[in-house]
C-alpha cells in the first residue's frame, strides 16, 4: 500500500468533496479543512469507509465559540486519525448560534456519544439523533452554556482590578 502523505490526503479530499471544502491549510503539519454542516456526516462516513484512507478513529471532538463571526458563531471541531497511515485530519464546521443543530456522529463512532454530550453541555449545540443528549459534567438544572464567550470568568463589575494592567 502506498504511503499516505498530507499532500495526497488533500488531493483525495478535493477529489471527493471538492466544492464542499473551504479553507484548506496545514497548521503545524495537521491538515485542517472546513466543511458545511450538511456535509459532515457523509464526509465522516466516506472517510471511514474509504479503503485507502481509513480514517476510523475519532480522536476528539470539541466545540468553539466565535461571537464576532456573525452567522457562524458556533463551531464543532473533529480530530480524526487514520491509524493505518498515522495521519491526522481536523475537520471544522461552523453555523449560527440561533440554529445550533448538528447531525450526530454516534451512529458511526460510539465514542462520539459523550463527546457530543460534553459539547452540548458546554456550548448548547444540539446533536440531532443523539440517543441521550443530556448534560454530562454540569448539573441538569443549569440553564446557561458556560463555555460560551458571553460568560466571562471573572466578575466584570470589579473596579479594583484594571484589566489592561494585567495584559488582558
Amino acid at each position, binding site marked *: 500500500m502506498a504511503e499516505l502523505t498530507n499532500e495526497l490526503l488533500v488531493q483525495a479530499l478535493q477529489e471527493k468533496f471538492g466544492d464542499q471544502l473551504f479553507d484548506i491549510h496545514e497548521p503545524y503539519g495537521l491538515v485542517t479543512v472546513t466543511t458545511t454542516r450538511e456535509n459532515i456526516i457523509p464526509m465522516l462516513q466516506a472517510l471511514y469507509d474509504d479503503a485507502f484512507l481509513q480514517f476510523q478513529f475519532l480522536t*476528539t471532538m*470539541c466545540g468553539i465559540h466565535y461571537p464576532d463571526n456573525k452567522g457562524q458563531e458556533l463551531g464543532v*471541531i473533529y480530530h480524526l486519525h487514520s491509524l493505518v497511515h498515522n495521519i491526522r485530519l481536523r475537520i471544522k464546521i461552523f453555523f449560527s448560534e440561533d440554529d445550533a443543530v448538528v447531525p450526530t456522529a454516534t451512529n458511526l463512532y460510539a465514542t462520539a456519544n459523550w463527546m457530543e454530550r460534553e459539547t452540548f453541555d458546554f456550548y448548547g449545540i444540539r446533536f440531532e439523533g443523539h440517543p441521550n443528549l443530556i448534560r454530562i459534567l454540569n448539573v441538569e438544572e443549569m440553564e446557561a452554556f458556560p463555555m460560551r464567550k458571553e460568560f466571562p470568568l471573572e466578575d466584570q463589575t470589579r473596579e479594583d482590578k484594571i484589566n489592561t494592567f494585567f495584559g488582558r
Partner: protein
Amino acid sequence: MELAKQNTQIVTPDSYMQELTTLNLGPTHPATHGIFQNILQMDGEKIVSGVPTIGYIHRAFEKIAERRNFYQITPLTDRMNYCSSPINNMGWWMTVEKLLGVTVPKRAEYIRVIVMELARIADHLICNSILGVDTGAFTGFLYVFQEREKIYEIYEEICGARLTTNMGRVGGMERDLSPVAIQKIRDFLRDFPKVMREFETMFNRNRIFIDRVENVGPITAERALNYGFTGPNLRAAGVDYDVRVMNPYSSYQDFDFEIPVGTKGDTYDRFMVRNEEIWQSLRIIQQAMDNLPEGPFHADAPEFYLPPKQEVYRNMEALIYHFKIVMGEIDAPVGEVYHSVEGGNGELGFYLVSDGGRTPYRLHFRRPCFIYYQAYPEMVVGTQLSDAIVILSSMNVIAGELDA
C-alpha cells in the same frame, strides 16, 4: 431519558429473582476510587444495565484556561490525572513549545523522558496494585507503594512537589537534575526490579487472582477502537497503538523499547500489559540515564523562560523579561495546534487555539479516561457485581481526568 427507560426494564422469563433491584454504586464508594456514580439494575447478582453519572469533581479547566497565561495552566493539568501529573505537565509544555516554535535541548528532553517514565510507572503501579486490593490481595499494594513513595521523592528532588508537580517550563526544565536526584533515580533503578518481580510472582500465575480476572470484561479491538480507547486498555485488546512510537516526541525515537499487547482485552490482559509496560519504562529510564547528554537544561528562549533570580537583580534585560513573563505580557503567535503524549491511560491530547493573545482562545483536553469510560456499561452488562468492581479498577478511571 435514560433513567426512565431503565426503570421500565422488562424482566426476562429466565430471571432468577423475577424482579430487578436498583443499586447505586457510588458516588462515594470505597471501590470506585474516585467520585462517580453508576446506577446499576441488578437481577440477583447479575448486572442488567448500568448508567454512569460523572461530573462530581468538574472544575471547568477548559474555561479557566481561557483566562490564564500559558505558565498558569500547568497547575490545571496537574489535577487531571493526578497519578501521573508530570506527563500532563510535559504534554502541556510541548504543546506550547510547538505553538511558539521553541526547540528544546537534548538534555531537557531526556530529563523529561525520565520523569515521564517514572510517572508512568507510578500510575501503572497504582492501577495494578489497587486491582489486587479489589480482588482481595492487599499485600501487593503495600509492597509497591513503598516504591511509589520513592518515585515521589524523586519528583520532590526535581521540582519540590510530590503529587501536583507543576514541573517544567517553556523550553525545558526549571532546574537541572541535582546529584541527589541522579542518585535517587539510580537507587530506584537498582532496587525496583526486585520489588516488581516480587509483585509479579504474587499475581501473574496466581490461580485465585486469575480466576477473578480472566475473561472478565473483555472488549474486542473493533469495539475498543470505535469507543476511542487508547493506551494500555487498547493495547490489551491487541492494537499496538502507542503515541510514543507513532508520533515520537521528546526524543522517544532514541530509545529502544517494546510495546506489549494483549489478545482478549480482558482484565487479565490489561493487568499484564501494564506490568510489562513498567518493565519497558524501566528500560527507557536506564537508557536515558546512561546516555544523558551534557548541555543546557532549557532552551535559549528569554522571552518565555523565566531568568534566574540573581540575574533579575543585576541585569536589565533579565528584569524586563522577568516582569513581562510574570505579568503575562508575552503574546503568543496566532495558530492552532494539537499535540498528544502517551499518558498513563492513553493518548492525552491538547488542542490549543491561540488568537494571538496572552491566553489560549480555546483549550481542549483530550482526556483518555473520559473517552473510554463510556464503554463501561457495555463491559459490565451480564457480569456479576464483583466483576464490575474489578473491571472498573482495571480500566484505571481517574476521577480528575474524567471530569477535568
